[in-house]
């Protein structure tokens, strides 16, 4: 639990942070809340030459209303995300998911941007971002660019960010009327990572599901949309039977791993059961 020596810099603007990353080269690493990075350093699983602490960059903080979407600064902590009135009103799924992350201490330190950039397949927030079709705003040497959530999570612990890019903010589309949502997290202890998680957002009109989005945590190298479930639900009646039938395909196209907490086979089983439960909750069934 003793990290290798590293340099540390704390820029106060995004431009300075990008410059520091360029100067640091491949071995530079961004640190925000540090809740994922510090354990990795202490276990000597990584040895960056320099840590660029973006925690002092004011523009990367807070939540603002930006018309049809919310703009959430990357440094916004899980605690602030789960308690923010705008997030609760317009992107309740994100608030609900943030509340399931680890424990209160970690939620006070860990940040939304950090969690997304870390791209842990067992992370909860990437799944919510995928279901909500969030857009990541990144800044690098060539300026700013936007990356859709479906393109952002690339592989195990790998996002689409370049090594000299900073994730500045997350655009979260507002959910309109008629949507219900639920995040069903399955883990072995309250503080543990998700064995499997299911984020569901369901739009209901009268007794029918008109649109459904279902995303899965820890069912492959990155969060994945359960598209066959989504198609089966579109136009289906909002009933327990219809939801159960649609959920049987939840594991289709997934590539879960086997580890100490569950085998791939059990994860596939869980994906089906938890999808059924998450969608039912989201649809108010």
């Amino acid at each position, binding site marked *: 639990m*003793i990290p290798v*020596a590293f340099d540390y810099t704390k820029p106060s603007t995004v431009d300075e942070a990008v410059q520091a990353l360029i100067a640091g080269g491949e071995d530079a690493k961004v640190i925000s809340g540090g809740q994922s990075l510090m354990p990795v350093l202490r276990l000597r699983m990584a040895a960056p030459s320099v840590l660029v602490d973006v925690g002092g960059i004011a523009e990367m903080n807070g939540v603002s209303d930006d018309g049809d979407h919310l703009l959430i600064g990357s440094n916004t902590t899980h605690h602030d995300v789960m308690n923010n009135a705008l997030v609760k009103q317009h992107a309740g799924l994100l608030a609900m998911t943030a509340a399931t992350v680890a424990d209160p201490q970690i939620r006070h330190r860990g940040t939304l941007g950090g969690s997304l950039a870390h791209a842990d397949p067992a992370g909860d927030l990437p799944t919510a971002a995928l279901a909500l079709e969030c857009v990541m705003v990144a800044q690098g040497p060539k300026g700013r660019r936007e990356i859709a959530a479906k393109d952002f999570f690339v592989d195990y612990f790998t996002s689409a960010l370049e090594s000299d890019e900073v994730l500045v903010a997350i655009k979260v589309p507002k959910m309109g009327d008629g949507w219900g949502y639920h995040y069903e997290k399955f883990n072995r202890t*309250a503080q*543990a990572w998700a064995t499997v998680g299911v984020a569901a957002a369901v739009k209901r009109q009268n007794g029918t599901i008109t649109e459904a989005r279902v995303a899965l945590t820890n069912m492959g190298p990155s969060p994945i949309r359960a598209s066959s479930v989504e198609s089966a639900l579109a136009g289906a009646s909002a009933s327990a039977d219809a939801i159960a039938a649609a959920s049987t395909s939840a594991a289709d196209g997934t590539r879960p791993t086997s580890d100490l907490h569950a085998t791939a086979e*059990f994860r596939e089983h*869980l994906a089906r*059961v938890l999808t059924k439960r998450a969608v039912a909750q989201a649809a108010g069934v």
Partner: protein
Amino acid sequence: MTETMDVTGSAIGRPLRRKEDARLLHGQTNWTDNIQLAGTLHMAVLRSPMAHAKIAHIDVSPALERPHVVAAFSAKELGELNGAVPCVWPVTDDIQMPPFHALAVDKVRHVGDCVAVVIANTKYAAADALDAIDVDYEPLPAVIDMEAALKQGSVAVHDAADGSLGTNRCYDFPLKPTGDGSFEAAVKAAGDDAVVVKRRFINQRIIAGFMEPRAVVASPMGMSNEMTVWSATQIPHVLRVLLALVTGLPENTLRIVAPDVGGGFGGKLQLYREEVLAVQIARHLGRTVKWVETRSEDMVSSHHGRDQIQDIQIAATKDGKLIGMKVDLLANMGAYLQIITPGIPLLGMFMFPAIYKMDAYEFSCTGVFTNTTPTDAIRGAGRPEATYAIERIMDELAAELGMDPLKLREMNWIKNTEFPYTTVAGLAYDSGNYEAATERALELFGYDELRAEQEQRRASGDPVQLGLGISTFTEMCGLAPSRTLGALKYVAGGWEHCTIRALPTGKIELITGTSPHGQGHETAWSQIASSILGVPVDDIEVVHGDTGRAPYGMDTYGSRSLAVGGQAIKKAAERLVEKARIIAAHQLECSPDDLDFIQGEFRVKGDPAKAQPLAAVAFEAFTAHNLPDGVEPTLQAEATVDPNDFSYPHGTHLAAMEVDVETGKVKIRKYVAVDDCGVQVNPLIVEGQVHGGLVCGIAQALYEGVEYDSDGNLLTASLADYLIPSAADLPSFITDRTETPSTTNPLGTKGIGEAGAIASTPAIINGIVDALRPMGVTDVKMPATPENVWRAIQAAQGGAQ
């Protein structure tokens, strides 16, 4: 800050808040890592990445080129200082006890085995320099599975070429009565009426998980020739003797201090190799050496516990009367024998018959070497394993006989009127009231209502099924009568010591040989002394954990501190009163017999106005101006007590378990623990011990389990993979106590530190199995993770489908 009440005369039985807590909670603590001495050097340990390998070549010299490095050692450089760590419990005459050096010599035998050390000016420099050490390992096949290890032709952890016997069989311990006492004869005698249930239970390996990591500071800078050793240990006194034997340092120059110690759970009942290394290198360099382990090191190198394969048979008549039991154990020793590794399963030997009456009992245990971290004591040490097996198989027997599991227990347990009772395992239980504890537990639990709900859920096919788990346990603690230990080939005694000094200012110094690491001895011991001396609890200071200030003791483990140490306190306090009485009588000009000692003062019988408080007597003893002839100055008394017997706390634990049959996830709906630990000195501390014990036992049932891969790599190597539950995972426990005083203990007390850990594991698993029995499930692998529960359901239903 403390809210201890100023009470006298009746301090026993009061739920006083702990004296030590304000300091601990405010961070004003003195952990071993907080010991900062000028010029301290830091040690880092290079550990084997392989479970079994020959060290073909090792060169530590490149590490010396690294910045701030002062020295580096492998076994070769350490030479004669590379002491062998002893095992003090050779359980049989022909036990195989291979050498266990502080640094591995020629071979490594488990992942985490100590290979070399670097000594540097900072802990960072020491850690950085480890990767400069050049080691060539020639991998050897590793043996992890106990049954594979015993097969003919298995690779030997200690092979013949190393001078060992070349077998992984460490020892065979048989307890085999002949003739009518044998299991076979008893079953045969019962004829057609005999029902035999046979099960194999796996009691998985666990890690102690103390919050403060192991740490040691060895300083040869003490006064005169003193080597002072601060260690995060449960056993400073035992450590002093063992370190003297291992290092050759004269015992009278060794001072061991266990400062604030942040939990142990048996994991710090050990002489660790790193302690030997720190002392030897400090001595060699003439400098202070400090080592603090990382959590990653702790997982591979602090001893593990449990890890038994239990084949158990129980026989009863068709109407449920127990006939006998046969137990055959395989016990995993790991790669080496540590301080009491081989003895742990034998503590369990006594406990398999538990609270039940039967006429036949057979037991055997084979200790097995494997390429894994050594095992040793963890909370309960042998008794949780035994209790798990007996309480699990009682449920299986009940199911086989079609009886209510509680009725079966009631029918066979020792009745309250039958004490003292000698069990088939040879223990003489002095007292107990299983009826009272069970009645109270049922009342708190709502057994009948829950059974009704269970029926309802079964009938409706609810995806969440309900099961009721029972554990009517007892245990043996208060280690131990020295003669008994001797008969079991344990090389030390089980006595305890106390010295009490009445100081001239009226304050009391209570010196104990117990060594608390979270138990609250400072408060509880003050209460015992206060009740006898009539001195306020806050005027008593408990001194412990420093062989310089508390030279005699056998330390803290096995729920012994109150059960044995408490007796020494009582005796020393009573002796102090008798000494003081003579001085008081002289002052008050009466005969000692004419004095009452009430509320801390000596009063002349019939003339209570004539009185002298203890503090005044202490001052007289200090000035010595007017002492009776033949009485020496100063007022102090000491006592060293060897207990008459073990103590046998018991209780009834009931768990209502909800099992989600779709996901396998279980939830503790309700947990009732009614414990009987005899007289409670401080019920608040007892409550804390019960809660902590419950969590430990429940953790084994549901969350914790060490996993190795087939090459011997520890898979559960961090707390992300080895799951320790928190308060968020557990219900509010419903607890109560019945109080059946021990008749062999002058205070009437029994142990409580391990009871919860011993009782709860089977209660939880019995509850899960009870929920799933209609689906055909008869066992669930521990820890009962969602997948293990789900697979048990799948396997049971596989046949039906």
